[in-house]
């Protein structure tokens, strides 16, 4: 074959060439500009348009922001200050309204002397979430814990919280952080206790109420453990035992215990909730409750039992086919009709139920995607090892599927959190519209349109953007695979 070229080709390099620096072409600011902004007529045009837009935004916003007034007692005073300082034509933001009323946007009508309670509740939330969300990197977790602790205590201190309470808060948060750092396994259990602690802090009342609810779960679990041999029957028995406990035992027992040891916080009713406390409460309750429901729905929808599947599909499609506003109106107008005569419960709770069902349907779809992404081999390997359906789901399938679905779940959560502003239409005081309207209804701040929107929008942006960045970070980490 190779006779024609044989003589010419033999070649051996005797010394390897060292790498050279690249020729001076790919660096320098001018070159960068040329390459990234002015690389052709279309690009030049686009750049000019972009600059124009930037200028437009700057030109409208900057004078307003730079002429802002932070110290004033009313909007009229604000305007006066602006026109005195910057001339009669000047237009300035009156952030004094935020300064005067920011606590109302954030904490609603929560009693002033108890401001530390919601703050502590949300601070603890980060401690509860840390082992779940930031478990992968010890450093990230420590940073989050430290920031959460410091911020919580700081903001509580700024709100005139008593020294004793402050010390208690600090001690609690430090102890919990230490637990997370030393015994991550235990910390996960502590995270499970969080919902009860959060509810107690926010609504107050006797500690025994939440404790009894928690005990119900314990009872159910114990019965299930004891009866575990009987498979599915054990689950039913556990559920029944828990239900009996809640129904019959818990209320009297709680009363009894409260009589003996009255661990009580002053109760705060839901109508005092408003602003971001309300949004965040609804949002977090919604996601925490919708996750398990979503998982069950997703499993049901992938089930090979037609009846179960059909019910799940009907539920999911119904919820997804109806606007959230309609569901909120159902919560406010109709839910009482569906319950036995005479029952009437808190509108916040009803809204939470609806929001939960709503996001459960979306979460279910996300998790279904995660389940579908798992290779069949995983199911088969679990089967071949003799794991039954629930064990296989719990140990093999769900951990993987949930991991894949986290980004989707987070974006569902972001959507839901944004949607909590819609509760204004059923008469709750959301931070956006209801609170702004309330603030504007007062004589001092009538006419302050832009500032509240600006403030509330900025908070929403920070929270949602933070969450979406976090989920992108997760996505990247997941793409890299298992370490």
């Amino acid at each position, binding site marked *: 074959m190779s006779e024609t070229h044989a003589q010419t080709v033999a070649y051996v390099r005797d010394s390897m060439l060292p790498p050279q620096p690249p020729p001076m072409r790919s660096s320098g600011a001018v070159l960068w500009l040329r390459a990234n902004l002015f690389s052709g007529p279309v690009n030049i045009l686009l750049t000019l348009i972009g600059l124009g837009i930037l200028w437009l935004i700057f030109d409208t916003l900057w004078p307003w922001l730079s002429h802002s007034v932070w110290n004033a007692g009313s909007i009229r005073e604000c305007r006066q200050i602006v026109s005195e300082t910057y001339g009669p034509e000047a237009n300035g933001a009156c952030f004094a309204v935020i300064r005067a009323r920011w606590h109302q946007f954030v904490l609603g009508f929560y009693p002033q002397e108890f401001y530390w309670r919601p703050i502590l509740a949300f601070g603890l939330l980060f401690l509860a979430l840390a082992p779940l969300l930031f478990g992968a990197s010890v450093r990230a977790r420590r940073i989050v814990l430290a920031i959460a602790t410091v911020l919580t205590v700081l903001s509580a201190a700024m709100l005139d919280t008593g020294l004793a309470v402050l010390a208690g808060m600090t001690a609690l948060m430090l102890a919990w952080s230490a637990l997370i750092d030393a015994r991550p396994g235990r910390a996960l259990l502590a995270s499970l206790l969080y919902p009860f602690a959060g509810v107690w802090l926010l609504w107050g009342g006797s500690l025994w109420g939440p404790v009894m609810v928690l005990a119900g779960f314990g009872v159910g679990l114990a019965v299930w453990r004891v009866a575990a041999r009987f498979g599915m029957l054990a689950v039913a028995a556990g559920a029944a035992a828990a239900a009996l406990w809640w129904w019959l035992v818990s209320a009297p027992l709680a009363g009894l215990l409260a009589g003996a040891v009255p661990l009580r916080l002053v109760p705060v009713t839901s109508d005092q909730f408003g602003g971001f406390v309300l949004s965040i409460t609804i949002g977090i309750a919604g996601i925490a409750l919708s996750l398990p429901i979503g998982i069950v729905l997703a499993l049901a929808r992938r089930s090979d039992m037609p009846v179960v599947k059909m019910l799940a599909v009907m539920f999911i499609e119904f919820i997804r086919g109806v606007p959230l506003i309609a569901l909120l109106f159902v919560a406010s107008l109709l839910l009482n009709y569906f319950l036995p005569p005479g029952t009437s419960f808190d509108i916040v709770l009803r809204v939470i139920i609806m929001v939960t069902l709503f996001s459960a349907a979306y979460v279910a779809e996300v998790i279904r995607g995660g389940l579908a992404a798992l*290779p069949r*081999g*995983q199911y*088969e*390997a679990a*089967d*071949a*090892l*003799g*794991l*039954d359906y629930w*064990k296989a789901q719990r*140990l*093999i399938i769900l*951990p*993987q599927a949930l*991991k894949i679905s986290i980004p989707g779940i987070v974006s569902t959560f972001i959507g839901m959190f944004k949607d909590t502003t819609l509760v204004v239409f059923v008469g709750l005081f959301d931070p956006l519209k209801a609170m702004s309207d309330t603030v504007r209804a007062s004589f001092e701040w009538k006419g302050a349109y832009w500032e509240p929107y600006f403030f509330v929008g900025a908070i929403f942006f920070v929270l949602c953007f933070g969450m979406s960045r976090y989920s992108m970070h997760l996505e990247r980490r997941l793409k890299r*695979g*298992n*370490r």
Partner: protein
Amino acid sequence: MQPLTAETRQADETAIDIVKLNKWYGTFHVLRDIDLHVSRGERIVIAGPSGSGKSTLIRCINRLEEHQTGKIVVDGTELTHDLKNIDKVRSEVGMVFQHFNLFPHLTILENCTLAPIWVRKIPRREAEETAMHFLEKVRIPDQARKYPGQLSGGQQQRVAIARALCMRPRIMLFDEPTSALDPEMIKEVLDTMIELAEEGMTMLCVTHEMGFAQAVAHRVIFMDQGQIVEQNTPTEFFNNPKSERTKLFLSQILGH
């Protein structure tokens, strides 16, 4: 533990008994009147062209697939729709897949201890000891704390074998355990399998590794179109195939 009566001994000597097994996918007849008797300690290699039903047969034995007619008795337990029987059979039969199917979210050790702990209800400590024992056997004890994604294909397949062994099965099924591996890794896995064979484990193995078949199999079964076309000892099978199809097949796989 029971005294060996005639009957139990009979059952004891038979590992798998398949009688007139038929299976359809929809209307497609994949397995046709399969009769197969495997004694305890016997090692069988199943070969055949793609689509001939080898995997399906293997998967029927631990009920990853349901059969429609005929009878499969594994270790004295007949496979019916009864869940208890299925569970019993599955915990007696270990299976190694072509694509390993390790659980990527668990470490190697956890992969190996999962089923013993949750199915056999063995204490964790004990399960881990067993797992380390088998990991040593497949010569990767040092990888126990890693995740599957960090191992090479050959190592992963050896973990898969160890995982199956941890359930202390009486029968091992292999479905083309080496065909997804790079050539260098094939040898590692085959070595492990040969060692297992030497310990007297009952094995059914779908493979085209003829060297392996020659070395360890008691019997080679050749399947085509859902039927057993020929079976024989390895030497006879390779050197002296009877049926035309077998000859054709052998010429293809040995040719390349």
